[in-house]
């Protein structure tokens, strides 16, 4: 595992909708922390809670779901189903002593380069604060 102190975020993004937004952020040289890693999936409603829990178990501090929202080519229920995944994962996180705020979800369309960078930057700040608080209480 990398030794840098910066929190690490795993992003689940979707091949058709939010991947292009994240790529566009790179193309436009809109910088965000390098400890943000992306795994692409066809649709955000296929993300399994066990994958998210695996990420925490292995050392990620936060997981960000870049959901398709109403733009999902598989149907409009995608957002609702992804929300259910987040809710059920929150319970698993509580059971493991993790804070629900370590899992975020936001709808990103293919042109949302700027919103992606804003979401990730603000999530990173939250995680830094959490990390600092955790260290202070030790």
């Amino acid at each position, binding site marked *: *595992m*990398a030794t*840098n102190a910066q929190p*690490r975020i*795993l992003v689940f993004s979707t*091949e*058709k*909708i939010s*991947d*292009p*937004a*994240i*790529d*566009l*952020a*790179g*193309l*436009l*040289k*809109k*910088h*965000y*922390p*390098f*400890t943000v*890693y*992306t*795994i*692409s*999936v*066809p*649709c955000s*409603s*296929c*993300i*399994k*809670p*066990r*994958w998210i829990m*695996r*990420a925490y178990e*292995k*050392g*990620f501090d936060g997981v960000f779901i870049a959901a398709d929202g109403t*733009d999902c*080519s*598989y*149907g409009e*229920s*995608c957002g609702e*189903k992804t929300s259910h*995944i987040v809710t059920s994962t929150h319970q698993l996180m509580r059971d493991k002593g993790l804070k629900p705020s370590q899992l975020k979800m936001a709808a990103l*369309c*293919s*042109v949302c*380069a700027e919103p992606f960078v804003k979401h990730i930057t603000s999530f990173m700040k939250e995680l830094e604060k959490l990390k600092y608080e955790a260290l202070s209480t030790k």
Partner: protein
Amino acid sequence: MKKKIGVYVCHCGGNISDYVDIEKVKDAVKDEANVYLLKNTLFACSDSSQKGMVDDIKTSELDAIVVASCSPKLHVPTFRGVAARAGLNPYNYVQVNIREQSSWAHSDQPTGATEKAILLVKAGIARAAESQALTPIKIPTTNATAVIGAGIGGMRSAIALADMGTEVYLIEKEMSVGGHVANWGNLFTANINGNELAASLHNEIKKRPNIKLFTNAELTEKKGSIGNFDIKVKSGNETLPLHIGAFVVNTGFAPYEPVSGEYHFGEYDNVITLPEFKKLIDTPASELVYKGKTIKKIAYIYCVGSRQDEEGDNKYCSRYCCTAAIHSSIQVKSKFKNITNLHFNRGIRTYGKQELHYEESSKNGDIYLQFSLDSIPQIEKKGNKTIVKVKDILTAGKELETEADLIVLVTGMVPRKNENLTNQLKIPVGRDNFFNEIHMKLRPVETVIDGVFIAGTCQSPKNILETLNSSMAAAAKANSILTKGEMSLEPTLAMVNPAACNLCDNCFEACQFDAIVQTEYEGRKVAKINVSNCKGCGMCTPVCPTDAIDLADFTNAQIESMIDALTE
């Protein structure tokens, strides 16, 4: 089973290697399990690199390959082709994006970019190790295209598509067709009027029964995906449902409007834009008169709203305006007597055949003065006279001043605002705020939205010839996908492990496509995927309480091995 994986790390010229230390990446992944062959390449997509990969796969009998280069949106078809040519299943190839998501995103932190690239490549290797051979699924497609915008580009796309046998719905927001060009006078190089060009294309449209033109119309709804979009078009008071396979977006540009005070625009009444000047000289008259004053001496100031400095948004060259200004200056001189043309420019860009125009203008006695961005021409009033001052690069930076009756600001193109269309189609825009293609040279009319193609000046500034060329390219691309009547889709089908299935209703409820059916397994009723209905969304997979459903190419083994690799 242990796999033999070939890994290729691309420099992308310097796009990746300027920020990511390729040797460090290679060194860090060389001992990863299953890595049998590891190479770096200047351009992985070049013909020679592709040939090398094919040879490697065959010679080393590789089971999988990983290409660490650019976005999957750009080169997945390229490297799947490489795999197929070498006899390797294309789904045993994994693309890793270390350009858009590493070198470019973190060009401010090269060490971090390298660290991230290492982990991304490791994750790609882990995924490849778990990859399976898959077969794409086929879906029927609709050979119909919606062309958005009936300017000259949109009309040309529509004609080309119709002639190739595609049903075309040509959707124009305005009441008439032809866009900006329909309002222009004489055009170089064809020497016809803009309205004649627009009318001739319109006549061709009328001759083709497979083109349906909607004016005063807008796209109001879009559902579905490439090959099968359901759209709604509002034309006047009527809303029409249509079924199409693709879009060609050809919505054109907006002319740059100088900000108030820019070269005294809006302050001095004899400062006008190039489009205004073109209208003025197209007006029948024996003498050139503007606001009651006879015009004899005209100063053209180039690159207004284009090639702007750091504070401006428009860094690009608008490509057509040098030619348009010179063309207008030749016309004004041939139409009216005793005209003097003074061209204050930043280097004339009349490329190709347009250079002949520049030569003609010079032979006509037009005067060219060149300025740089840090010393732009100054305009001031002295009594009734308008004076233009410039430091002319062509006379060793000497400060020259001249009187002018009319100042023509040679304005360029800016992206047309069209929020409704952008919201419907979600086409990304580039740094110049024009719609963005996947790759300027390799995939110049495709967007990251499958089935949405772009052409003409909605994509970037272009002259008429370039607009028509790109319009035909977009038409050819759309037709090539739709004309076969079917297309391949990713084989990302859900897969049920019957031994783990308890047949609850969760997956049936989650699936929107009736792709889950019941079957018998060892005397028990279990769920099974109807592959002809499965769309590969994976919505059924997280709801299974026994985790009996996996999605092909996104299996637990693949995703979790990637997560593990990213945290090594």
